[in-house]
């Protein structure tokens, strides 16, 4: 029952045919041709993919940058609007203050205080130009404007109350 497996294969013709001497070169040429064809196909695919990725990347980058710039410019615009509103109100309160303040010394002191605060504001504004995304600097800028407005409101309230009490006293004691 035992058989040599090589004897079994010898029966088949295909195994008895001798390969031509050039078979190695032929096989190699065929392989090379196949590889270069598929490589070319692969390269084109890769280039398309790479180009698409780069395009997508730059497009997203561009829109994000535009978005950030837009957000930044929106914030700067908002700050400018707030600043304008505050400055208008400060100016209005300053003129109201001038109409009720009869003391030159008082006006001079408040003028100096407001100038000092404005100087601080300019300093902080320089920081804001460098760092437009810093909400802490924005808060400080608004607080500075608010301090100026509050100063003027407080002193007017003080003078008005004092005048009211005086008028009442002078009217009741005459």
């Amino acid at each position: 029952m035992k058989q040599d497996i090589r004897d079994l294969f010898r029966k088949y013709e295909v195994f008895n045919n001798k390969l031509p001497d050039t078979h190695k070169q032929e096989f190699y040429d065929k392989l090379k041709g196949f590889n270069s064809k598929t490589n070319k196909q692969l390269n084109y695919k890769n280039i398309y993919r790479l180009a698409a990725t780069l395009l997508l990347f730059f497009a997203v980058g561009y829109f994000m940058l535009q978005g950030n710039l837009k957000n930044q410019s929106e914030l700067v615009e908002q700050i400018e609007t707030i600043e304008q509103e505050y400055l208008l109100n400060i100016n209005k309160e300053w003129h109201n203050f001038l109409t009720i303040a009869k003391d030159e010394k008082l006006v001079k002191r408040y003028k100096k205080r407001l100038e000092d605060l404005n100087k601080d504001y300019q300093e902080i504004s320089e920081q804001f130009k460098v760092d437009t995304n810093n909400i802490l600097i924005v808060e400080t800028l608004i607080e500075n404007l608010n301090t100026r407005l509050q100063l003027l409101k407080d002193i007017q309230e003080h003078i008005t109350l004092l005048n009211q009490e005086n008028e009442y006293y002078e009217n009741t004691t005459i």
Partner: protein
Amino acid sequence: MKTLQFKLWLLIFFTSIALIAQTENIYSKSFKTNAATTALLKLSGGSVEIQSSLDDKLYVEYNVDFENYPNRKKKAVIEKVQVEAKMTDNHITLVDKSKFYNYRLNSIFGILYRKDTLKEKTYIQKSKALILSEIKDASLTKSFYIEYLKHKYRNDIKKRDELINKYNRKKKRRVIKNFIIKVPKHLDLTIDAKYTIISIKSDLKSKLSLRLDGGKLMSQSLNNQGNVIKVKDAVFMAESIDGGELSLNNVKKGLIGRINNVKLSTEFSNLEIGDLQKNNRFTGFSNSLVIHNFSDNFNEFNLLSEYSKIHYFKLNTDYVLNAYGFNTVVNVDNNIEKITPTKNGEKTEFFKIKSSGKGLFSGTINFDITHGFIFIH
């Protein structure tokens, strides 16, 4: 098995501690000094603690504690610390160029401590101990965000607690900067600071010239006759001041526990004093000043003030009040007692409280007040 479990728990515990809190020493330097040595500290942003040195050396230490902070981000924080200290011709110069801006401090302080107005405020006498506890409470490290929430939602407790709880539940990454300067007692110290939190410990004996623009000055005691302290656009809190000159400009929140023998000048500020002691001289413009208590032997108190509101609470001892000036309203127990004439603008003695001659006599209050209000509660 139990021993193994215990060891594992111990290992986890220590690893967690190491991850939660890590201290990095960033800068460390010391200088030998003598009686002629002087020092200048130029600070900009950040926080600094000034202590007394136990020997004749000036020490500079900068440590940073990181809590739950990722290692990759620590480097950026450490790189922000830029301290330079050098000694030339027996003069030490320390410059802190660290890029930790405390701009936010001023905006938050501005929101928290809006200048008081006549309409809103009610005045309750506080003891010296209460003022001291307020100062101690304010000097504790706490979240500005929680303080902000407490203020913003003071009328909506449900919303306030909900937001505070939400914030407290969050795992927080924290960077705690410990910048400590130890100064020998014989050394004259000059501090020029902007947007900085300065904390002065009780044992500091050095003569101090300090200027702070923006930020916060917290002091346990300022006890040197030669001290000159100028604070502008900042918060000022001192448990005790004895001697020297103090100038406050636009101090939205000023608290002094005890004040003795001080020349004080204030502008556009709110100031509360727990205990006014001997021989103080105040001048002021556009302030709100509340004196909660006079000591039993305050001796003499002189106040020259314009466009201000002066509040004080009735003394338990015998005293004299001489009020001089014009265009001023005197309000006793919420009733107008006296209004000075305004017509000629000449200063006159417009109000007086005479000595009763009974009991302990504590001193004389001399007010020179124009365009102001005196409230005696």
